[in-house]
């Protein structure tokens, strides 16, 4: 299994953001992208996930291009963790976490519940939150639930947009460790934009955004 980004080009009508970005990654790898305010880190992740228009290039997962609009399996290949919001307000937390499996698979409610409880236990999401709605959660809880929903589909590429906001160092380190634990059971490439030293220390590689491209950051 491999993930390869080839010649990614992200352009807004008035602004070229990324030009000719290429990157290869192997499973079990966590790649941190060091970001600063407004340097395009979020747009890069959204471009890779196929959320933006004005994107060209390829994001190949096992040779299949994620950016090709006809790939019906893309929901199971990529998980996306939003920096803020990202949950559906019409559903409670449990329904938000289970929705991808309910919509895309033939799993029974019991099987889905088992998966949901597994990822929630892993990420220390309290069962008491299940009946709450997204507006009841704080930023950290929202991001953790986002992460649980992304992990439940066992994606092969996990894109995380600044996990650390509002998290204590201990909680962030713990969450990263648990992410690695999940990665051992279900191989995936994790691409995470961050400004946190903890995340960069725990990552296998650290890149930074420079001249509309990704380059290796110096240790």
């Amino acid at each position: 299994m491999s993930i390869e980004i080839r010649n990614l080009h992200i352009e807004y009508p008035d602004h070229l953001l990324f030009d000719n970005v290429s990157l290869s990654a192997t499973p079990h790898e966590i790649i941190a992208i060091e970001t600063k305010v407004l340097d395009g880190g979020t747009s890069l992740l959204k471009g890779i996930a196929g959320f933006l228009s004005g994107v060209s290039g390829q994001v190949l997962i096992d040779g299949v291009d994620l950016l090709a609009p006809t790939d019906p399996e893309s929901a199971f290949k990529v998980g996306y963790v939003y920096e803020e919001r990202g949950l559906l307000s019409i559903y409670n937390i449990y329904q938000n976490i289970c929705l991808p499996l309910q919509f895309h698979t033939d799993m029974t409610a019991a099987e889905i519940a088992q998966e949901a409880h597994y990822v929630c236990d892993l990420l220390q999401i309290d069962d008491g939150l299940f009946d709450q709605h997204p507006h009841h959660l704080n930023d950290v809880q929202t991001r953790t639930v986002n992460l649980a929903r992304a992990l439940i589909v066992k994606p092969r590429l996990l894109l995380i947009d600044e996990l650390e906001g509002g998290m204590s160092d201990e909680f962030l380190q713990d969450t990263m460790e648990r992410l690695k634990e999940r990665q051992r059971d279900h191989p995936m490439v994790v691409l995470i934009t961050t400004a946190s030293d903890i995340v960069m220390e725990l990552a296998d590689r650290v890149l930074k955004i420079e001249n509309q491209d990704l380059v290796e950051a110096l240790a």
Partner: protein
Amino acid sequence: MNTLKPESSERENQPEGSPPQNSWRIIEFFGRRPREVAIFLLDIIGLISIALAASKHLVKPKRRRIFLNLFIRQLYNTGVRALYINGMIAIFIGALLMSRLFDYIPQQVISTQYSYLFVVIVFRELGPLISGIILISRSATAVTSEIGFLRMTREFQVLHGLGINPVFMFLLPVFFAFPISLFLMFIYFDFVCLLSAYVFIWFSDPDISFLTFLANILEQITLNEVSINAVKALLGGVMIGIISIHFGAKAADSFDDVSHAISNSTTAQLMSFFLINVVLSILAYTQ
């Protein structure tokens, strides 16, 4: 003097023999409205075809279950929670209009004439119109603001990221629930109106039997009238729902957009719904 300068310079820049600037503006104004209406109608037709195409998802039992939850939520919000206001207006119409009308009809023809007038006024016209107005003011505005809010908070993008078509989650439940709710509101309105009219008539004439009163009115209702009301509910409900989605989805980044979407969609819905009612009534009931 200064204010005249731009005008004179505009005129100087125009080619010889071309109409003056104001004429272009008038032509542009009259040309823009039909263009906007044509685009709006094409959008509505497009949304209806998208909704029909998305209905294929309902074949899968798991997706059908997700849909049913959203559909029941919509039906409850649209139909059930409107019963109170629908019932209150029906009581007022029955008490103030239909029971008074009873007093003005000569006794010799009361059983046929009153029933006929009840069907013509309430069943054919007032029931559908008032129910539609309640649907627009209570539920359609709520759907428009909900869709606008979902757009603002990028929840459609979230669904896209999960490989779920937002049309399935938000358009389909409205597409199916609005016509059904509207038809049920028609029936409920007619029944409550009939009941309240009877109660107020009974105060002045206690000898009148409810069953006879009901039977006389039911006798006047033909299959044609029921079918026309069903068509009004179907077309009206679909149009009201689709217009809500259309304008809600146009909201982009600010609450201001949502406010505009609500007022524009309410205007378009009232015009469309009245037009559908008038056209269908004329086609069906003109002798």
